[in-house]
C-alpha cells in the first residue's frame, strides 16, 4: 500500500484530499506545514486554528497527523523573496515561490525522508505521467501557481481534486461530515490575508514620501508614501481627488517617483511584446510557435507567439494585455497541458 503524506492546511480542499485518498486505499498521513505564524496589525494569523482544524479532520479520518515546521525556510525563501522583489520595483508572486521552494521541494523531501512514497495537496490541477494538466474546474484551476514545480516532484504528487469542481468538493466534504466542510476559503496571499500587501510591506520597509507625477504633463499631482507600494495598472489608493481616475503607468525606485495617467490607452498599460527570464519548463522545453498563455491566475488563456533568445523567452501576444508588470509570471499551455513559463523582466 502506497504511503501518502497529504499537506493539510485546515481548509476544506485539503481535508477532502485526505479523505478521498484514504477511500482510494492509500496509507494516508496528514501533515500541517507550519510556515507562518506572525500576526499583522488588524489580522490575527489563524495558523493555530487552522492547525487544530487539520488535526480534527485527521482524527475524524483516523489517520496519523504530523506538524512540519518550515517557518525559517518559508521566511527566507518566500517572504524575504517577496519583500526583496518589491524593493526592486517588481511585482512578485509569493504563492508560486511557495510551491516551488516549500510545498513541492521541502515538504516533498521531508515527507520522503520520513517514509512517504508520495505527497498530495488540495490543489486544483491534474498530473498524468509527470505532465501537469489544468483542473476540470477551469474557474478554480491552479496550474498558474504550479508552473515552477519540477516534473520529478510532480511524478511523486497526487492532486485528487483536479477532477472535481469546487461545488462538488464542498458537497463531497459535507457528505462525509468533514469538520471543515463549511469552512470559508482563505483569501489572497496566505500570510497577507485580507489586510493587503501594502500593510504587510509597511512592516518591513520604511515609508518614504515621494511625488506622483502626470506622465503626460510632467506636473506633480500629489504625494505617495513610497513607490514600492504601487503596481503597474493600479487605480485605487492614489488619493488624487475628483475627476477622471488615474492609473499607475510606471515608477522609478531610484527617484521614488510614481507616474500616472488618465489615458486608459497609454502605451505602458498595454503590452504585446514581453521578455521572460528565469524560464522554467516542467518537462522538456517546447518548440517555438504559437501557444496559449496567461499572465495572471484565472486570467483567460490568450494566444501568443513564443520564441527563444538565449535563456529567455520572447513573447508576442496577439492582443495586447493590460498591466503586465515586471516580476509577474507568464505561464504557457498547450491544450490543457501546463508547460511552464517565466518571469517578466
Amino acid at each position, binding site marked *: 500500500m502506497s504511503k501518502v503524506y497529504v499537506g493539510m492546511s485546515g481548509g476544506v480542499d485539503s481535508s477532502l484530499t485526505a479523505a478521498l485518498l484514504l477511500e482510494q486505499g492509500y496509507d494516508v498521513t496528514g501533515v500541517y506545514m507550519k510556515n507562518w505564524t506572525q500576526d499583522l496589525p488588524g489580522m490575527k494569523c489563524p495558523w493555530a486554528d487552522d492547525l*487544530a482544524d487539520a*488535526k480534527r479532520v485527521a*482524527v*475524524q479520518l483516523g489517520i496519523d497527523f504530523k*506538524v512540519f515546521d518550515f517557518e525559517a525556510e518559508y521566511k527566507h525563501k518566500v517572504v524575504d523573496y517577496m519583500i526583496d522583489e518589491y524593493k526592486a520595483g517588481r511585482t512578485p508572486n509569493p504563492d508560486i515561490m511557495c510551491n516551488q521552494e516549500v510545498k513541492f521541494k521541502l515538504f516533498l523531501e521531508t515527507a520522503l525522508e520520513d517514509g512517504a512514497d508520495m505527497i498530495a495537496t488540495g490543489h486544483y490541477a491534474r498530473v498524468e505521467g509527470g505532465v501537469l494538466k489544468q483542473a476540470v474546474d477551469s474557474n478554480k484551476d491552479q496550474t498558474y501557481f504550479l508552473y515552477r514545480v519540477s516534473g520529478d516532484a510532480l511524478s511523486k504528487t497526487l492532486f485528487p481534486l483536479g477532477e472535481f469542481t469546487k461545488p462538488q468538493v464542498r458537497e463531497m466534504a459535507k457528505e462525509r461530515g468533514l469538520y471543515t466542510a463549511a469552512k470559508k476559503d482563505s483569501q489572497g496571499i496566505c500570510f497577507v490575508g485580507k489586510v493587503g500587501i501594502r500593510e504587510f510591506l509597511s512592516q518591513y520597509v520604511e515609508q518614504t514620501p515621494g511625488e506622483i507625477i502626470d506622465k503626460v504633463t510632467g506636473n506633480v499631482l500629489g504625494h505617495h508614501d513610497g513607490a514600492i507600494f504601487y503596481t503597474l495598472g493600479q487605480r485605487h489608493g492614489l488619493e488624487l481627488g475628483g475627476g477622471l481616475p488615474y492609473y499607475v503607468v510606471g515608477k522609478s525606485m531610484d527617484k521614488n517617483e510614481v507616474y500616472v495617467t488618465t489615458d486608459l490607452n497609454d502605451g505602458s498599460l498595454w503590452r504585446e511584446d514581453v521578455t521572460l527570464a528565469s524560464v522554467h519548463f516542467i518537462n522538456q522545453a517546447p518548440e517555438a510557435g504559437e501557444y496559449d498563455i496567461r499572465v495572471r491566475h484565472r486570467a483567460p488563456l490568450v494566444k501568443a507567439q513564443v520564441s527563444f533568445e538565449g535563456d529567455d523567452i520572447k513573447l508576442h501576444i496577439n492582443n495586447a494585455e493590460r498591466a503586465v508588470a515586471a516580476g509577474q509570471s507568464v505561464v504557457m499551455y498547450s491544450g490543457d497541458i501546463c508547460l511552464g513559463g517565466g518571469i517578466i523582466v
Partner: protein
Amino acid sequence: MSSDFIYLDHAAATPMDSKVLTAMQPYFSELFYNPSSPYSPAISVRRDYEEAKHQLAQSIGAKQDELVMTAGATESINLAFGSIKGHVVTANIEHHAVLAAAQIRDHTLVESDARGFISAESVKLAIKPTTELVSIALANNELGTIQPLRDIAQVVKQEREARLGRGDTTPIYLHTDASQGVGQIDINVARLGVDLLTLNAAKIYGPKQVGLLWAASGVRLSPQIVGGGQESGIRSGTENVAGVIGFATALSLASEHRKYESERLTVLRDSLQSQLLAAFPEAVISGHPKHRLGGHLHISFPDLDAERIVFALENRRVLVATGSACAANFGTRSHVLTAIGLAPEVADGSLRLTLGHLSTEENTSEAARIIIEEITREYNRTTK
C-alpha cells in the same frame, strides 16, 4: 448547552443554575437602577445589592464590609497581589493568574510534590524576612489536589508572631484562591485561617466575570481600578448588581448542597476512574489519592496525544479537557504536569475529567464506555 453532549469539564465552566438565573433576571430589566442614585427605586436596588453581599459574607463566615466585588477571580487575585509590596511565596503549580501576578514581584516558588501537594513545611522554608504574601490555591485546578491550608496558615501565623516578638512590623498574609474548591469544601475563612480569599461565581453555577476578594479587617487593600469610589474606593465602577445577586444565590446553593454533591461526585468519579483503570492498567492517575476534589479526575494515557483524544471524544459528543499541551503550542506542556514530574510521553496523553451538576450515573458510565472505545482506537492506530 445542547443536551446531547456529555459534559466532563465542570472545572472550566459550569452551566448557570436556573435559580441563579431567576434571581438575576429582574436586575437586567425593571430593577436596572444605578445603586448610587438618590431616588427610592435605586435605593431599593442598593439594598438588594448590600443584602447579596451580606449573604455572600455569611456563606464564608465573614463580614460584609470585608468583601470587594470584582469581575472574576483573576481581578481578585490581582487586587490581592497589588496590595502588597514585599516578597511573595507561591507554588509552581498555581494557576496562571497567580503565577503571572507573582512573576512581576520578588517571589519564591515552592515546589509541589508528585501528587500536586504543597506541604506547610516547604512553605515555611520559602518564607523570607521580607515575605508579605503567601498564596496557595485551596485546590489545584488541573489535578484537584486539596492543599493543607490550615497547616500553611499555622506557618504564616508563627512567622507573624515571630516578627512581632522581635519588633518587626513587616506584615505577612495568607491568600487562597478558593475558586476551584468552593463547591465541595467548606470555606469558612476563620476555620481556614487565611487573610485573603478569592472566589469566582462562574465555577459554582453562577455568572462569569463575577468574583470577590475577601480581606480580613487588618489587611489594607490598594485599589487597582480607580474611578467613582465604589466598593469603599477599592474597586471603582458601577456595581454589577445582577451578577452579585446571582453570585450570592449560587454560593448559598453551593453551601446548601455541598456535602451531598461532594459525596455524589466522589462516587461517580471513583467509578469512572476504576472503569478506565480496568481497561487501561498503564494509565496514570495524578493528584493526591486522598486529598482530591470529589468530581476531579486527571488521567494520563502514556504515548497518546491528548488533543487527538479530545477531538475524537467531541465527535462522540463527549466534552473533556486536555490536561496537556495542544499541537499549536507544542513544546510548552502544562507547567503543573512538568512540576509534578510527569514524563513527557505521559503528560502529553493527559485528560482532565471534571464532574458536576450535569453528571449522572447514567451519562458518566456512558462517557466511560465511549472514552474506553476511543482510547482503544488510538492505541490500536499508534501500534499498527
